[in-house]
């Protein structure tokens, strides 16, 4: 314990002192070394997977991350606890994200650009992290349009995610592709219409 005990407290200190650097408060699990090894026992593993899922979601929400590249994330604080010198390996990270992409994991992730390939075959691709799912984003967008009285006006996609009017909204600086996905849901629900050509689309809510 002598070697490991001071580390978590150090970690807490640095995160408290330098809120701008990481700012995110990791849950207690993050300081628990076995958390970074997927547990072989099924029941433990499923609890661990759901803990990871909520950690990834809250981390991404905090840092406004909408998609992850698995390989690049392996060296970020999310998957690598430098103070413990513990990291998630590629296989386990994929397993966690695959779990998140299933209905068991509440569909909180989706592998990008995966066609007919099955889970595990892809080489550390990009993954959407749905701390809000597209349908939840759609609802948030509709609610925002309603609240700000922009029904019937044409909005560009750019002004939705980069404009001053939405600076305080959760979808500010959202990934364009994800926005398109979410707007598609609005269209499907009959709440919006997209027009214009690729790259300069506008959307009208009604």
């Amino acid at each position, binding site marked *: *314990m002598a070697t*490991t*005990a001071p580390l*978590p*407290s150090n970690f*807490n200190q640095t995160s408290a002192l330098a809120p701008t650097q990481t700012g995110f408060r990791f849950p*207690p*699990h*993050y*300081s*628990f*070394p*076995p*958390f*970074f*090894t997927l*547990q*072989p*026992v099924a*029941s*433990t593993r*499923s*609890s*661990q997977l759901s*803990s990871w899922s909520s950690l990834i979601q809250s981390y991404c929400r905090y840092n406004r991350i909408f998609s992850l590249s698995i390989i690049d994330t392996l060296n970020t604080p999310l998957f690598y606890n430098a103070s413990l*010198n*513990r*990291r998630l390996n590629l296989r386990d990270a994929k397993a966690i994200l695959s779990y998140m992409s299933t209905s068991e994991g509440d569909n909180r992730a989706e592998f990008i650009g995966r066609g007919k390939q099955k889970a595990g075959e892809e080489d550390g691709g990009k993954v959407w992290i749905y701390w809000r799912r597209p349908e939840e984003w759609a609802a948030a967008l509709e609610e925002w349009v309603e609240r700000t009285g922009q029904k019937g006006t044409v909005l560009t996609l750019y002004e939705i995610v980069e404009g001053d009017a939405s600076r305080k909204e959760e979808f500010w600086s959202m990934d364009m592709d994800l926005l398109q996905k979410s707007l598609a849901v609005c269209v499907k629900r009959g709440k919006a219409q997209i027009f214009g050509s690729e790259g300069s689309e506008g959307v009208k809510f009604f």
Partner: protein
Amino acid sequence: MDRRRTPGLSSLSSRGLQSHHYTTHGAALRTRNAQSLETQLSVFQSLLHNFALTHSKDIRANPAFRAEFARMCSALNIDFLASSYHRDGRAADGKGGESIWAQLLGGSVNDFYFNLGVLVVEECRSTRAENGGLISVSDLKARISKGRGIGGGMDVSDDDIKRAVESLSPLGSCFSIMKIGHRSLIRSVPKELNTDQSTVLEAIQVLGYVTVSMLQLNLNWERPRAHAVVEDLMADSLVWVDTQAGENEYWSPAFITATAT
């Protein structure tokens, strides 16, 4: 006492008379003593009654105060979780059915522990997959004080939790407090740990983690024995394995919060 010994038969009768006087006087003293004690007790109880009424808010709000209050009550042999039948007087005068504190405080202190008991059960159940049904009292305390809903947080002491767990005892042997090392853990699975398993958990609590070779060295166990114990514990989710340290390290999730703070 000055005693004149009269010879003959008269001594017999006077001695009898004397001892009779002694016994009646003794009995009178005893009853007077008992009476005064009884009045003292009833005065004390009514004072305690008033005290509980005037301070019921504090009792509910302040964990340290509540613990002291509960300690005082148990010192007086008053169990405020028990039903009224522990005091014949109350059952007899028809007020029975509620515990004395439920009557005094409209059930609030009593309910407090039952509510806390429900929270304890909830937390134990929701963390069972993670820690195999063994959670440290301090971890549980942190979870309860954080609460789940809005305004759900509750400031409780270790003592409160112990009492709440005790109040769950009528539900069977599922919930109990066990001591490993100097730390109290709440066990929410009916499984009994064998000596080897408790020894390992105790070692984990002291050292933070164990490895098979640590067990071999420190406890003089054969490798298969050490291996079997940690495998058993792992199967029950009582320990988690960390494979990134060379030799596998086994950590107890009951101390997740403890290691983090």
